[in-house]
């Protein structure tokens, strides 16, 4: 039994069937990539996991608990963190503050009026955030304004913000989109290292085949709202249906 189970999920927008009877089972501790051409329904599926969209039919279960009808913050509190296509960080705040906020969210829950002790007098949270920043190689920038970071560093910071929560599942939506080759390689290294150290389950949506084949344990290929093949990177590389979906995919 996997950590995330998706059964018979359908989602339509007007006449467009974005997700067509999707079944998925994500194994705990794995890095599972979802690939497919534009409009295949990958992002729609991800939005169903995090509470932004609600499927028309079907179930999404995380550790046996249904995620349907929960709001994004409840799903996060259950142990699911998300990395966005464009890094979503608190760009008015320092790096350290950026990482302390998710750490506080884990310690204090979704809402708590905590005004008695100052932010810098919370050693448990602060130490954890500083260690996490060191882990992604941003320790010496911790008092800088995060808005001034490069795209690659923003991505590192966002990953640190997710991992500091010690989530059970991280969802990554095209984590290397719009990045230079160097930044992409850095991010791959970081993700690989994080997999070893933290052992978190990851679902990654990606266009960049270089990223997918260097990282993924398993790959699911989507086309027209439906998973057409699933297997290891080796199996996917040789599969004729994948080539068809990507290159000659104009069938009915």
């Amino acid at each position, binding site marked *: 039994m996997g950590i995330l189970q998706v059964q018979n999920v359908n989602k339509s927008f007007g006449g467009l069937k974005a997700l067509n009877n999707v079944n998925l089972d994500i194994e705990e501790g794995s890095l599972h990539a979802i690939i497919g051409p534009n409009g295949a329904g990958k992002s729609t599926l991800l939005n169903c996991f995090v509470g932004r969209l609600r499927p028309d039919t079907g179930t999404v279960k995380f550790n046996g608990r249904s995620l349907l009808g929960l709001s994004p913050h409840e799903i996060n509190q259950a142990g699911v963190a998300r990395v966005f296509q464009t890094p*979503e*960080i608190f760009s008015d705040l320092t790096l350290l503050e950026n990482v302390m906020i998710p750490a506080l969210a884990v310690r204090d829950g*979704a*809402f708590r009026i905590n005004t*008695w002790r100052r*932010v810098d007098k919370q050693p448990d949270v602060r130490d954890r955030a500083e260690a996490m920043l060191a882990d992604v190689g941003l320790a010496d920038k911790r008092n800088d304004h995060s808005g001034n970071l490069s795209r690659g560093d923003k991505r590192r910071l966002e990953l640190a913000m997710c991992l500091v*929560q010690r989530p059970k599942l991280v969802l990554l939506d095209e984590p290397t989109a719009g990045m230079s080759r160097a930044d992409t390689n850095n991010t791959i290294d970081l993700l690989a290292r994080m997999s070893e150290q933290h052992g978190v389950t990851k679902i990654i949506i990606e266009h960049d085949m270089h990223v997918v084949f260097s990282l993924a344990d398993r790959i699911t290929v989507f086309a027209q709202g439906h998973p057409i093949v699933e297997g290891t990177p080796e199996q996917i590389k040789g599969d004729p249906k994948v080539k068809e979906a990507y290159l000659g995919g104009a069938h009915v």
Partner: protein
Amino acid sequence: MTKIVRETAHGDAIRFSLFAVLILAMPVWLVPFGAAYPDLMQKFAIYGLFAIGFNILFGLTGYLSFGHAAFLGVGSYTAVWSFKLLGMNPLPAIALAILLAGAFAWVIGYVSLRRTGIYFAILTLAFAQMSYNLAYSVLTPITNGETGLRVLNSDPRVLDHMMGAGEVDGPLVTNLFGMEMSGLPGFYFCAVWLLIGMFISFRIFRSPFGLMLMAIKSNQNRMNYTGISTRPYALTAFVISGMYAGLAGALLCVTDPLAGAERMQWTASGEVVLMTILGGAGTLLGPMLGAGIIKYSENIFSAFNEQTLHNIFGFLPDGIEGAVVSVAGLFVGEGWHLTLGLLFMLIVIFLPGGLIEGGHRIQAAVARRGKGGGSGHQAQPQAAE
């Protein structure tokens, strides 16, 4: 800029003490400015409180409310009713005003915070204008309509009568256990509340709660996906700022026990926005500075009349003098809001971070020059954050 984990936090004790000394010594150092009389200094303290509270919502959380005068009005009416029913002691009046304004803010905030940005601003404006119109119409039994609500000798004033202070000759003045709240004691009473309000603002700014509010302002989407329920945080900020406004409204009545609906008009809501932006939204001391400057200029410019202008421009030849005086006359007296508007435009265009940012720029320039000169001279840390 917000930087609360950084070293700036360590200077807080000094910064707050300096602020306290400056406030308490106002009757001394305001003398050369011609502003050292209690009525005006009270206004500084009261509108300072109003702006400090507003800043917790607008500066920290990023929600621009155009309806905070409603809470000022609720505070004033509550205070006067407390004077009428309970007695002229300001403490129960203030406690009740804070509670009632907080409750009122909770209701308005609960509805308005379903939207953000401009829609939120419009909702708060609509609520405030509704309150204003209600105060003039249906609620006349409570607000006494256009005449305004005042304390009468025939009012019950239960506590006063119990203490045997029921019968008073002449006008009723608020008193704190016998000490009349007018003149300097009245100012110091407001100043103490200002210091309490400022202290709470410091605590909120440096606390995890304050950090959450800043994060909501910075990126609400990320907050949702970070496991934070943003609406209760924003609502708490809204209620806190409403309570500050209620306190300010009550203090206005402590010095002059009269409440009128014009206190709830949208211009009053706009004024607190101006104060906060002028001083520096999101900074600790900016709103107080903005409130002081606006109330001071109001006092100066609205007192000008044609005669004073003739005196100032008397050195000019007659024809030119007439022209200059008639143009300048538009900007003073009743028209002093024109001056305020100009000042506000200049600030928003050239110093979007408010006067505090200006202070920082000067400080940085002085520090650079000091280093360049090789004298090792460091710029004095400014009182302003």
